[in-house]
């Protein structure tokens, strides 16, 4: 019996979520608060207080959602790859759970960037979609996210799903710059789209404040959701353990 107890203790020695949960408990209200305040302030500033653009009218205000979500989409994928690398090398469950919990958030931001860009495109270019280099690589990123999520879901055993996902995320992260590079090249060598490319409007100083607020807010929101999802994941694992233990023999 003593031996069994020892085995139990050492089996789980390195896999203890306690520290994470305690830290998360402190961080969560801060993240939630910063996200709420920054996003609210950014939206008020961006949608009401900043003057309309002289060329684009009010349509350009989509930027305050579009640009931060596009940045988050890329940032989260890199974060996922880093977490996956850590999870793969050290086999630490927390890294796996973080990667897994990030994916749907990243996919959602990618989707928002695509959708908002598309909505913006209609007034600006007169079409919902062009096969521009940046748009195309964003679309590919979206597919990579979907593949990752699908792969993880396909495994009955979540630890295996996490490791399979880690391999895919690492392969994918090598591929992203290659896709970006090739798509850039593709679009410049074919004759450019009938409608001229995104002309980056030089930014007025008044636009920078709401943009920054939104970026900070989105990042805080991401961490907030991450904490929630990791907690949920930990709880789910516990339930599974109990249920399986109950089912044993």
């Amino acid at each position, binding site marked *: 019996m003593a031996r069994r107890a020892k085995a139990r203790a050492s089996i789980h020695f390195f896999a*203890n979520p306690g520290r994470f949960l305690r830290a998360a408990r402190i961080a969560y209200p801060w993240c939630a608060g910063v996200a709420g305040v920054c996003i609210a302030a950014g939206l008020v500033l961006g949608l009401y207080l900043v003057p309309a653009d002289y060329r684009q009218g009010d349509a350009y205000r989509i930027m305050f959602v579009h640009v931060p979500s596009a940045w988050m989409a890329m940032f989260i994928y890199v974060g996922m790859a880093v977490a996956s690398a850590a999870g793969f090398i050290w086999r630490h469950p927390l890294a796996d759970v973080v990667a897994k919990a990030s994916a749907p958030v990243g996919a959602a931001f990618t989707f928002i960037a695509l959708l908002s860009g598309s909505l913006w495109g209609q007034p600006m270019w007169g079409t919902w979609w062009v096969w521009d280099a940046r748009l195309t690589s964003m679309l590919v990123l979206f597919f990579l996210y979907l593949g990752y999520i699908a792969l993880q879901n396909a495994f009955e055993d979540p630890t295996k799903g996490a490791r399979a996902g880690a391999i895919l995320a690492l392969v994918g992260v090598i591929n992203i710059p290659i896709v970006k590079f090739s798509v850039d090249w593709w679009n410049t060598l074919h004759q450019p789209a009938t409608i001229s490319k995104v002309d980056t409007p030089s930014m007025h100083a008044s636009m920078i404040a709401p943009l920054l607020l939104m970026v900070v807010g989105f990042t805080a929101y991401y961490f907030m959701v991450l904490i929630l999802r990791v907690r949920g994941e930990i709880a789910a694992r516990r339930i599974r353990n109990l249920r*399986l*233990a109950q089912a044993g023999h």
Partner: protein
Amino acid sequence: MTELAQGARFAAENLACIRGERPVFSGLDFTLESGGALLLHGPNGSGKSSLLRILAGFLQPVDGRLTWNGAALGEAPEAHRERLHYVGHLDAVKPTLTVAENLRFWARSRGHPQAADDALARLGLDALADVPGRFLSAGQRRRAALARLFATPAPLWLLDEPTVTLDAEATARLEGIVRAHRAAGGMVVVATHTEIGLEEATRIDMGEHSVSVEAAVGASADDSPGDADDEPW
């Protein structure tokens, strides 16, 4: 068969195994010397197949260590792979290759191509040598899987319920084969539910090592709410 290392020692200390996030067994020790045999038995789901997969190196034990002549296995996984034969629940017989072709592939990959014909004869498969795997009955396919044991000499045999679907004659042949292997200094680990003629085998009842339900559930139920965070993932 004299090529087998004499005086080898394969030992496990305090092994523990988790599958699908659920502990299966823990605190398992054994020592196996040249010529020795280990007989695993125990109820369904007690972890016999899991243990064999750990011994073959497919699964990592979550705790404990495995040594060969005192050296931990993890240090030289290739060396370990070369000294074992594993026959699991699956037969690994290709349906479109003939029995002889199936076997020859394995014999050749370890550099003993001439071993294949001999192996067929030993399991009473000579008449089926040119039959494609797809046409075999359950027991014939099992024999073809067991014939791989002769593809190359290896000191450690890991057999997961080897007699399943074998008829009496083939079971007797297998017993003779294992006896000869041990006499030549080989070791064998066999999981089985039926009686199999293994003289002087160490018996392990996996049921005794399995992590009981009560222990697992009870432990977490006892925790005070504040401690819940320190539970395993």
